[in-house]
């Protein structure tokens, strides 16, 4: 029994069909409770007021936006090395999710930034890199759509994903080099930091627990969406294969 058995569409469909309702339910419960907790049961920030609460959407969305690309990278590699169709379809499935999460992160960021920095948009490194990440997603999805043969499309998008990853990281550094920005550093990871050097900036525990729950919820949501979309893609491919078969006979 190896993990690769689930690369078989039939096995994957069986397993994902069993898991999907549970993951979706858990995702819904954790996101709803995290947002309720975050929006109504936490105090307002002494500096940022109630605006701070957008963090419960902004940060998890940004996290998923990056993780979705990572998922694409891993599944693309699996396709390139082992040529499992499910893997290629999972890569295809996660791109739109990543793109939408990137958009959510950018929009909530703009809504948050307006009262804080007095502007909807600034050419800040983090914002700019997210915009560029969005462009990478767009190109990746467009290539999937444009190529007619699905296996060819899987090959081409995998190569693009591998090269794109390197260039996305390069862009991140380039943009950092280009402009040191307004955006605060990533303040979530340092929550339990032993060094209290910059305690003023770290997110206090009051916010951290609902935020962690929200991140978990978004992650489960991502898993559920990827499973759902991959199932749809598999059914689509099966339909095409059946139609092609019919034409041959």
């Amino acid at each position, binding site marked *: 029994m190896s993990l690769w058995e689930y690369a*078989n*569409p*039939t096995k994957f*469909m069986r397993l994902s069909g069993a898991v999907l309702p549970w993951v979706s339910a858990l995702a819904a419960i954790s996101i709803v409770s995290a947002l309720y907790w975050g929006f109504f049961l936490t105090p307002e920030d002494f500096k940022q007021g109630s605006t701070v609460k957008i963090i419960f959407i902004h940060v998890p969305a940004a996290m998923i936006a990056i993780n979705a690309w990572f998922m694409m990278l891993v599944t693309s590699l699996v396709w390139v090395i082992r040529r499992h169709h499910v893997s290629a379809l999972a890569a295809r499935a996660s791109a739109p999710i990543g793109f939408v999460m990137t958009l959510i992160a950018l929009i909530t960021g703009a809504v948050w930034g307006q009262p804080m920095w007095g502007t909807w948009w600034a050419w800040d490194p983090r914002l700019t890199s997210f915009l560029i990440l969005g462009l990478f997603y767009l190109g990746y999805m467009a290539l999937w759509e444009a190529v007619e043969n*699905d296996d060819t499309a899987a090959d081409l998008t995998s190569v693009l994903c591998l090269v794109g990853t390197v260039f996305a990281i390069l862009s991140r550094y380039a943009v950092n080099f280009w402009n040191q920005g307004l955006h605060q550093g990533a303040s979530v990871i340092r929550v339990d930091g032993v060094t209290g050097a910059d305690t003023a900036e770290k997110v206090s525990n009051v916010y951290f627990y609902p935020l962690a729950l929200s991140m978990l919820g978004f992650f489960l949501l991502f898993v559920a969406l990827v499973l759902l979309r991959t199932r749809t893609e598999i059914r689509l491919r099966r339909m095409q294969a059946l139609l*092609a*078969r019919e034409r*041959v*006979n």
Partner: protein
Amino acid sequence: MSNPNDTSNDLPRGGLRVENLTCTRGGVPVLRGVSFKLSPGVAVLLRGPNGVGKTTLLRTIAGLQPPLRGSIEMNGAIAWAGHADAIKGTLSVSENLRFWASVHGVGRRGISATLDHAIESFYLGDLTTRPAQSLSAGQKRRLGLARLCVTGAEIWALDEPTVSLDADSVTLFADAVRAHCAAGGSALIATHIDPGIEAATLDLQPYSTRGDLNDAPSGGDEDDDETPLGDDVFLSEGSL
């Protein structure tokens, strides 16, 4: 994938062996279990109705697409000539040939002899300085076939080489194939007309999938490769 330069097998130079080959076109298997052998000095005509997979088979053998299953072994280089002639309109006839000769590793010494031979074989002597875009369709085709002569490849894979050739040019082509075979080369030619070459014929049968839709891909097949064929992976019955 085949290894075109694998000389460890028992094939003579210019030989080609195809075993149990299955190819796809656009994800659909079109040929299954094709096996044949091509010896040096022999030309084989591929025949079969439109859509049977002649082009697909030739492209697979030429290494332009990977076979789904089966093996292709060859001893020697292969030259491919498809529907397009691989000719640049703004270059002259001799510039085109010179380019392909040097790409195929013909050294500076032998290049003019090689070019003369090719130009003579396809009766292009009066056209050498003309830009290829000013040639007629038939002349272009002749130039495209003359390209084969300068490659120095032992195995020719030709897809419909006689399209838009007149009767005299078909004779030229037949002579070129004969000369190629006499020099120890071999040729695999997909064609609908009889080019007048003493050649064996390989008839391709239309591929039918009727009835095996619900068969497990590994059921009863003599090769034990578990990988389902192309999109067949999506066709197994399941909880879809």
